[in-house]
């Protein structure tokens, strides 16, 4: 290796581009071979779509007048029982009555278009919400378990070790089934509660080990200095050890949260309509298998990269004192 002269970077960057282009081409040829018909235009409707909401007559009566022009019409209905005319506004193209028509209560007058949130957006929201709540609870469980793991009390230590080993030694999918079918049935839990519980317990065990490693990485001199100033062990933990440990565990913690978001896709097995389950449901009706799975993957990627950017930013903020 030459020490002073730096070898040029561009041939390697060129090679990288070449490999990426090659991979894309390979993918394209592969789909050509199975004669897959791409229908990307079907995807957007699963994010947001326009639905027609029927508008009905509020009471029996006669259509007295229709006014308005352009996109909407307002229909005045004189109630059969007398009194002031009632008004219904509908889209012009959907108008189903004429002036002088008699209408009964709940008869269709027409429809109004409404923007509706599609299943992919709903699934994405459920995934984000589920991951956030279970991540937050997992963080608290992990913090407490991590502290118990380091406690001088053998009971607390034993319980913490048992919990961590149990969770780390069994598959998350099995844990979700046990949580839903066994604990969920015994305690009569809602499926969402069971899903959040299983994910939080799972994440908590890993976070506990991260927290333990973080606390142990802080030199003993730090707590000795704090104790020598008369701080109690709790005060020392709170003001000296945990803030420093938190800074150190941010990168592994970020990894754990990203894993959690991805692992949350497993709750679809207990019929929680998260992003993955929404994707599966859409495919049964649209047959756009490839497009939907690619879209779902992209959405997970979007959420995880936003999170990792956020934690990276936090990490840089904490690096102030270095």
């Amino acid at each position, binding site marked *: 290796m030459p020490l002073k002269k730096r070898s040029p970077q561009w041939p390697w960057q060129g090679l990288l581009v070449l490999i990426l282009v090659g991979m894309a081409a390979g993918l394209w040829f592969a789909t050509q071979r199975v004669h897959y018909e791409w229908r990307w235009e079907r995807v957007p409707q699963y994010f947001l779509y326009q639905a027609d909401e029927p508008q009905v007559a509020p009471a029996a009566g006669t259509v007295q007048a229709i006014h308005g022009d352009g996109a909407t019409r307002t229909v005045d209905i004189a109630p059969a029982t007398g009194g002031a005319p009632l008004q219904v506004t509908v889209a012009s193209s959907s108008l189903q009555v004429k002036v002088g028509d008699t209408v009964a209560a709940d008869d269709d007058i027409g429809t109004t278009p409404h923007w509706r949130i599609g299943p992919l957006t709903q699934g994405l929201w459920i995934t984000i919400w589920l991951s956030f709540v279970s991540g937050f609870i997992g963080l608290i469980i992990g913090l407490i378990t991590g502290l118990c793991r380091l406690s001088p009390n053998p009971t607390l230590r034993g319980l913490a070790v048992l919990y961590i080993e149990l969770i780390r030694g069994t598959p998350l999918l099995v844990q979700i089934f046990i949580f839903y079918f066994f604990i969920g049935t015994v305690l009569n839990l809602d499926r969402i509660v069971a899903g959040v519980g299983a994910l939080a317990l799972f994440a908590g065990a890993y976070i506990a080990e991260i927290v333990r490693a973080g606390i142990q990485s802080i030199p003993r001199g730090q707590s*000795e200095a704090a104790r020598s100033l008369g701080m109690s062990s709790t005060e020392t933990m709170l003001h000296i050890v945990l803030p420093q440990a938190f800074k150190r565990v941010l990168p592994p913690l970020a990894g754990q949260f990203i894993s959690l978001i991805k692992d949350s896709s497993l709750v679809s097995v207990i019929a929680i309509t998260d992003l993955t389950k929404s994707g599966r449901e859409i495919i049964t009706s649209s047959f756009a298998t490839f497009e939907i799975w690619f879209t779902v993957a992209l959405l997970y990627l979007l959420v995880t990269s936003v999170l990792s950017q956020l934690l990276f930013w936090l990490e840089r903020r904490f690096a102030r*004192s270095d």
Partner: protein
Amino acid sequence: MIEVKHLVKIFTSRNQVVRAVDDVSTAIAKGEVVVVIGPSGSGKSTFLRCLNGLEEFDDGQVIIDGIDIAGSKTNLNAVRREVGMVFQHFNLFPHKTVLENVTLAQRVVRKRKAAEAHDKAMALLSKVGIAEKAQQYPSRLSGGQQQRVAIARALAMDPKVMLFDEPTSALDPEMVGEVLDVMQQLAREGMTMAVVTHEMGFAREVAHRVLFMDAGRILEDASPAQFFTAPREPRAQTFLKQVL
């Protein structure tokens, strides 16, 4: 101020038992400056760490200002408030600024108001000559500056006794002087001090008494004048020959 009676500290590691502090008895009077010297591994640091209970001891008594620190009803945190300690590796809190390092324990332990803690901290930082670095993080300071902040941090608790555990051993030679100056000033002001050090010059000039330790025992307890000119123990004689 400090009374130590038959103090014993035993370290047990795999099939090895070390009596780090072996039946040590001594006393430090109010306003006295006692320097503990001895070869490395002689137990002098362990002895000092027993004085504020950072090291749990196996037998004997440590009485600080009339309170037995190992007593079943003793609040060790309350005792430690009165005993400041300065460490070899400074142990400043890296996530806090210099000022926060000095105010934190005042706020948390002494429950002082922010303004009061701030004024006290700034006064102490000027005293150790480092007030202009108050807003910096410790990592920006030299070793000597960090150690002076550590002294200010301990003094902020208004301790009755100060313990120094090899305060200059981790410093570059040119920074030793600035720390020793601060310690000397403290001694002049009448602070009760127990200092473990290898700085023979400091021991000779500032100490009222010198304790020479070897293998966990105090072999010699003498005034510096007597110790440095005519040590009685042969171990002390060889030690002095090597370091002077």
